[in-house]
């Protein structure tokens, strides 16, 4: 072994090390390039998907069909496909080999949501000496009637004999059998509502009897109480006073039966207790009655046995008739809500009216 031999070995080592280093840096640079390209493609694909969503929503508002599948975008390198399934719009943007998926929820703002009182048929005031004052809009399929002496109805904006589709809400065809507004559609509507909220915000009760709801701290933070019965008129709910007696609560009670609201006392700041009922809604109170609610009954709405003055904020919507009776010398003042947001569940109640994008999310596979 001499010095030349050592130099050869050292040379080999240096060459091997340099080759390894070169290979590593080459590999890193390839991976990083791929990452950059993927990130760039992903960003492009995301904005393309959002463009598809915007395009679809624009067409829905205009009553036009959705854009065709694989609609090219920009210089044509990207494309989007939009699918609408009920209240959902799915937009898939593709750029290069990357596809990103955005899902948006739309709700239809039925004109009734904007009224203080809406009835598919008449609005009647019974009860001698009673006084009904309605601020905001009143829209009736039939007309306002007073069947009492010394009673009076005062309206800021009353329009009678309105078209049925503006004063009634048809439950969408949730079971997909081609016929909307069936009891099963209503049951499935309730299912869809509770499935759209995290389980911790929902109370779901199956019963053919009656559920009694009292103010309860365990209902704080809940969005929906759904009481489901097997047939129309089952699954009644009786509400006493309020749902929580807490500020800022916004609870909707959905019932496949009738809802009876006894002595409403919902007076907390920014709180709302709303009702969606298949078989009717009745309100009764013996002392001063005050609440903010959005009430929808697929059947009648009765504000009955009101033995003292009442102050209501929100909307009463009845697909049939609405009666204010046994108002014994009492004064009822109805005022539209100042809130812009719909109570839980109402966004799934109608598929007619003005569409509104209420939320969007990216679907990650």
């Amino acid at each position: 072994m001499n010095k030349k031999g050592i130099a050869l070995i050292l040379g080999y080592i240096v060459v091997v090390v340099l080759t390894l280093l070169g290979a590593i840096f080459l590999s890193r640079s390839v991976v990083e390039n791929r990452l950059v390209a993927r990130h760039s493609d992903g960003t492009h694909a995301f904005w393309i998907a959002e463009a598809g969503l915007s395009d679809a929503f624009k067409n829905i508002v205009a009553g036009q069909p959705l854009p065709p599948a694989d609609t090219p975008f920009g210089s044509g390198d990207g494309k989007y496909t939009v699918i609408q399934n009920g209240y959902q719009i799915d937009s898939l943007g593709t750029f290069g080999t990357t596809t990103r998926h955005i899902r948006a929820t739309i709700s239809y703002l039925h004109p009734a949501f904007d009224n203080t009182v809406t009835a598919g048929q008449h609005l009647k005031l019974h009860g001698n000496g009673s006084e009904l004052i309605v601020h905001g809009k009143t829209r009736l399929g039939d007309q306002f009637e007073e069947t009492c002496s010394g009673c009076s109805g005062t309206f800021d904006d009353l329009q009678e004999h309105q078209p049925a589709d503006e004063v009634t809400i048809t439950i969408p065809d949730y079971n997909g059998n081609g016929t909307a507004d069936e009891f099963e559609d209503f049951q499935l509507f309730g299912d869809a509502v509770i499935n759209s909220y995290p389980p911790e915000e929902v109370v779901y009760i199956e019963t053919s009897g009656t559920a009694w709801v009292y103010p309860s701290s365990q209902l704080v933070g809940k969005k929906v109480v759904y009481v489901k019965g097997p047939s129309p008129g089952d699954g009644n709910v009786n509400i006493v006073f309020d749902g929580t007696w807490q500020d800022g609560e916004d609870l909707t009670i959905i019932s496949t039966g009738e809802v009876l609201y006894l002595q409403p006392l919902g007076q907390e700041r920014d709180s709302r207790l709303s009702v969606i009922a298949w078989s009717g809604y009745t309100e009764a109170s013996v002392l001063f009655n005050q609440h903010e609610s959005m009430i929808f009954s697929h059947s009648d709405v009765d504000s009955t046995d009101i033995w003292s003055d009442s102050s209501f904020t929100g909307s009463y919507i009845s697909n049939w008739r609405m009666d204010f009776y046994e108002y014994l010398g009492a004064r009822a003042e109805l005022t539209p809500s100042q809130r812009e947001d719909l109570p839980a569940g109402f966004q799934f109640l109608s598929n007619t009216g003005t569409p509104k994008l209420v939320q969007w999310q990216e679907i990650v596979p």
Partner: protein
Amino acid sequence: MKKQIIILLSLGLLLVAGVIFFSVYQSSKIAKEISREKASQEEIVPKTSAASVRPRITPSRPQDYGILVTNQGEGPKTQEEWDSFFSKKIQGLKSQSSTQAWNNVQKNIEKESPNKRQENLVKLEERIKKIESELRKNPQNKEAQDRLQRLIMLKSIAKELPDK
């Protein structure tokens, strides 16, 4: 001389090992970057997502939410039964954490004219008797039956509400 060769070879091997460690470290950094990118995509998925979040609906236990369920045909019927039914629950509401809320109820009642509760209780009693008489004539009158139940319930509630 042999020693020098061994030292050089060892140094070379150490260098190769260092390079390998460095490359592994870099790869793990890249892997972390990829997983972080994925995680950030997952973060933008809101909790209130669609039906896929909970494919099956599980019924809740009503009692966990202070909700009482009475079966059809069961539950109170007479005034005494209704009084007892509401009394327990409302006494519970008065004593629980909702005391402040109950104070608000009292404030609300103060909006009433004095003795309104007593006046309305008398009127309720009169109305109940009138409907009972109607029902004796026509026991099948469903509307009157419902009305009677409602008035009895209101009377029980009114008994528990405070006076001004």
